[in-house]
């Protein structure tokens, strides 16, 4: 490994959060961004080639060292680490609305989901998944919400572009499925041609 790759490895290990290429470039005043990218590539190869249980992952616009998924069960069973709490259906739906409609106010979220959203919004905000990004023009200048950087980290996304594009969604593409089918997703119906 090059000295820069070693520096980067040390930084990623110490920071325990995604570090951007720009941040990593601070390590060596002589390093160009392209040098950092090359070193990151080298580091990734080292981990992959030697079959390390750790891999270099692109996450939330940066890079982070994470254990490989294959070892999650064993680590968890031994209680060396705690799995991140599962997001509730309400939380996921609210996140979905915010991710696609941001900046978006509470009223619109409630209109789409058909239920009040105050509690969910508060807990998502407490977990750092969403944040207030401004105020709307409507009466009372309602708070507008958007996704926070933690949203990408928790969902393992690099940026919002990783979200499925709306035209990729299966709705209006699939024929109605028979009842016996696995109905775990809500994409089973198409509007009839009228």
């Amino acid at each position, binding site marked *: 490994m090059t000295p820069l790759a070693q520096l980067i490895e040390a930084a990623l*290990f110490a920071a325990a*959060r995604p570090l951007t290429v720009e941040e990593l470039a601070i390590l060596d005043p002589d390093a160009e961004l392209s040098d950092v990218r090359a070193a990151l590539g080298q580091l990734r190869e080292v981990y992959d080639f030697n079959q390390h249980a750790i891999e270099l992952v692109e996450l939330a616009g940066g890079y982070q060292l994470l254990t490989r998924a294959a070892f999650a069960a064993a680590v968890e069973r031994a209680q060396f680490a705690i799995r991140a709490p599962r997001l509730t259906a309400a939380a996921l739906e609210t996140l979905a609305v915010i991710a696609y409609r941001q900046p978006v106010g509470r009223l619109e979220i409630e209109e789409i*989901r058909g239920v009040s959203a105050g509690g969910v919004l508060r807990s998502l905000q407490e977990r750092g998944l969403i944040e207030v990004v401004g105020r709307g023009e409507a009466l009372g200048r309602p708070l507008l919400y958007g996704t926070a950087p933690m949203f990408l980290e928790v969902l393992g996304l690099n940026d919002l572009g990783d*979200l499925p594009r709306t035209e990729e969604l299966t709705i209006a593409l699939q024929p109605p499925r028979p009842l016996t089918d696995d109905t775990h997703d809500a994409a089973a*119906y198409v509007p009839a041609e009228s």
Partner: protein
Amino acid sequence: MEQTSAIALPEPPTTALGASPAFVVQLDAFSGPLDLLLHLLREEQIEIADIPIARIADQFLQSIHELGLNQAADYLEMAGRLLRLKAQMLLPRRSEEEGWEDPRAELVRRLLEYQQIREVALWLGKAAERRAEQYSRGYLPPPLALPPPPLRVDLLELLQAVERVIVAIPDPVLHRVVPRPLDVEGATRRLNALLDARSEFGWLEALGPAPTITDILSTLLALLELARGGTLVLQQTAPFAPMVIRRDASRPAD
């Protein structure tokens, strides 16, 4: 998946008090009225764009009744919406009438929109599951702010701090409890003896020689008690005049 299991609950959980269904449990099974509505449509294998409003409205009402959701305002709001649609659909109209807008259009739009959100939510859930399979160094989220530097104090500073705390404590109000037993029985016996000997005597005589405050109080209480019981009569000839204690005339001297 979750919806089906919620409907298939063999018996609603009951409280110890009786058979009141625990509606909260079932509220959790649906993430809202739109979810419940989609579930009903799916069960009936009905296409969203062609909802038989009357039937679905009735089923919706029945569901929220059966599920014990009737306290949830969100569901009631949808129930009201469905009933209004049901009424609108019953209004007579000419099929070729220009400009007629299907009153269900808004509901259909919302259902489709909600379905899309459900699909995205599902995708997000899977993404989060995948991410949870990978651990970063240390599983706790990084602290938002640097923790304060460790506290460094020497023994003297610590003792001075303790001193400041102790000084600030107000002196406790100590109250010495001195046992001063009143001897009302003894005083009663003494008064009775006096009454036996004399039909009338004064307060000072009743007290006896060199009375303590306890003796005075005991005697006073005994006097009042005896007066109340009718053994003796207390009299004052004038305000602030010496008290005269007289045997009750009706009580025979023995």
